[in-house]
């Protein structure tokens, strides 16, 4: 029996397992603010809530990006435009509500962002989606630069350098909430995240979603089935803008300020990083990526100035060695796990993981040493490494780091080949092969 048939037989079980995973993730998201609770002051941990809100927003953003990159095979380098412009619209709408010109329930503000995202994406997307592949990548890149340049030029809408600010306590809540405490915004963001995730999941199973995938696989054949690939790409692009716009509105409500960073290349790059680190081939991949990148940005960013380098290196490692991303790696193990063969691999994994960990440690040490030496030079910053005060100029540290990286790396590499061979052997009998 072929492997792929087994995969489907496991389908029922996987669906059950899948919804279990979704619900526990949601449960965790709901409960986390109460688990990480600042008992001493009897209030929510501000940092944790901020982190969770950001994760929720970025998950929607990354998933909307994957509607293009994963589903449609379109590589956009300007996706932040469709988060940023709706964020600006939302913040202006918030100010209009505060001034009494408008009345919109606060809970529905993300819809304002979504609709404006849809409109912007339709406007920019109509010409853009005539192209695909590299030309598409370059036009989106150009549009990203264009809008960023515009954001610094036109004061009225973009507010110049200082951006546009608003107060999210609008007093238009249908639930009677003030939305002053960050936790209320978090739950609103979470609710909209759930809505957006469910909608995007369903969208992938509609005729449009399937045709977008067909276009990705073979854009020419689609025409001989009666479809216009431009039309399909356009619809997909516009809808992707809708969801990015929801993320944009949540962004505006959370931070109460929108500057040109929200349309900028850094955020566009982040969409790319989150999606490809998490995995483009699996629906929930970008969420994994979003969680990881936000954690790296916030937690690692607290202790290290070099967190962006780690994100970059992780991204490149993924692109080169695991194009399916983290989710791809996890899914790959599904069949092996189900057939109980994972034990046979554990030892091989340990053999790679241990030296690999040492290599990572060595790499981190080198980067951190470099960073602290340079910071010492530029900012006269304090030198603290791994919790203790160390002399970053010490050749022993540098030598140790380099040795760890080289030795650990070469062992991990050799063991990696052995693992690959073993994997091939084991996967042969299962559907992972």
């Amino acid at each position, binding site marked *: 029996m072929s492997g792929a048939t087994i995969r489907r037989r496991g389908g029922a079980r996987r669906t059950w397992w899948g919804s279990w995973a979704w619900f526990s993730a949601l449960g965790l998201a709901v409960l986390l603010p109460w688990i990480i609770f600042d008992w001493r002051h009897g209030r929510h941990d501000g940092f944790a809530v901020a982190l969770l809100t950001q994760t929720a927003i970025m998950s929607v953003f990354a998933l909307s990006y994957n509607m293009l990159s994963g589903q449609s095979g379109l590589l956009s380098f300007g996706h932040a435009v469709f988060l940023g412009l709706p964020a600006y619209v939302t913040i202006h709408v918030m100010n209009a509500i505060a001034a009494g010109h408008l009345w919109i329930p606060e809970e529905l503000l993300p819809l304002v962002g979504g609709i404006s995202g849809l409109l912007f994406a339709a406007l920019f997307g109509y010409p853009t989606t005539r192209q695909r592949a590299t030309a598409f990548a370059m036009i989106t890149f150009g549009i990203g630069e264009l809008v960023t340049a515009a954001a610094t030029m036109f004061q009225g809408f973009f507010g110049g350098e200082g951006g546009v600010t608003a107060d999210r306590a609008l007093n238009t809540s249908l639930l009677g909430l003030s939305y002053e405490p960050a936790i209320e915004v978090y739950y609103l963001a979470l609710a909209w995240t759930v809505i957006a995730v469910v909608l995007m999941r369903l969208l992938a199973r509609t005729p449009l979603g399937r045709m977008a995938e067909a276009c990705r696989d073979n854009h020419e054949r689609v025409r001989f089935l009666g479809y216009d690939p431009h039309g399909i790409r356009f619809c997909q692009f516009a809808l992707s803008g809708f969801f990015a716009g929801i993320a944009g509105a949540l962004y505006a409500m959370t931070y109460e300020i929108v500057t040109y960073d929200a349309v900028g290349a850094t955020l566009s790059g982040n969409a790319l990083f989150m999606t490809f680190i998490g995995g483009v081939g699996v629906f929930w991949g970008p969420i994994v990526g979003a969680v990881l990148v936000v954690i790296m940005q916030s937690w690692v960013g607290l202790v290290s100035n070099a967190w962006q380098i780690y994100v*970059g290196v992780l991204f490149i490692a993924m692109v080169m060695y695991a194009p399916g991303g983290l989710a791809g790696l996890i899914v790959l193990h599904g069949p092996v796990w189900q057939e109980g063969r994972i034990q046979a691999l554990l030892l091989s994994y340990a053999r790679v993981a241990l030296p690999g960990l040492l290599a990572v440690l060595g790499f981190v040490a080198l980067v951190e040493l470099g960073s602290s030496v*340079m910071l010492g030079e530029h900012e006269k910053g304090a030198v603290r490494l791994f919790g203790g005060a160390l002399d970053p100029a010490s050749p022993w540290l540098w030598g140790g780091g380099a040795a760890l990286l080289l030795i650990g790396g070469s062992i991990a590499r050799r063991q990696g080949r052995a693992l690959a061979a073993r994997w091939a052997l084991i996967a042969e009998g299962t559907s992972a092969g």
Partner: protein
Amino acid sequence: MELLLVSVLNGLLYGMLLFMLASGLTLIFSIMGVLNFAHASLYMLGAYFAYEISRRVGFWVALVIAPLLCGLLGALIETYGLRKAHRHGHVAELLFTFGLAFIVEKLVLMVWGPTAVPYRVPPELDFTLFSVYGTHVSAYRGFILLISAAMFAAIWLLLTRTRMGFVIQASLSHPDMVASLGHNVPRVFTTVFAGGAALAGLAGVIGGNYLVTEPAMAFSMGPIVFVVVVFGGLGSLAGCFIASLIMGFVQTFAVVLDISPADLLARLGVAVTPATPLAEVLRVPLPRIGPFLPFLLMVFMLLVRPRGLLGTRDT
């Protein structure tokens, strides 16, 4: 008149620098199919290398060594990075260079700090070559023109007189054929990538002190070079050259011509008041639109003529 002359000179210089970057990028893009996001990073590294070398040894040594270092780096990137990423297709290659550009920027930021480094024009060239209408033209500008001209001559000779040059020319117009002719494609790829990297490094060496050497320089230059390549057209060095000069002039003249669409309308007898629709857009003076123009031109070009000015193939 004076303004015009100086602006033409500045536009020419900027265009030359752009071409130095764009020629390498277009060669790499046309032959390998890789849109190299890290190209401007090599330009930046060239400037920083030159800064370090000229600080220790001298500018003239830097002029030779820094581009070579960049070329070596390019060869390493191609052999150990791109070639591996290529197994997963062009998208992986594109993403790889994107990630690389990101890392290089952060590394430079870490090593040399967020502000510009004092990489200066060498004192030997820091004098006024001649003056027109009271405007001084420094010798270094002449030097840049000289270097670029010499470099173009060298490239031209390499492309037209050497065997590798013929292969590269053939790959430009017929990328599929070269592989079937049995040429060593990996070596062509490495050569082209390293050559492009060295050119970018050279541009960094002579542009870093003419403009500015800072961590943001790759990011401000990169998109413009993209625009040049797209505008000029894939597979055409001539188109690339023309596009470089156009962008050079557009950028320079946009800075000096202090007019806005509203001014033009005023000449036509239409007054723009705050009540006019899009008044803000119409009142923005040209210098502030400057950074905006190349992208406008690129998007426009891709929409009306996706192959670019003199391009032979679709992107």
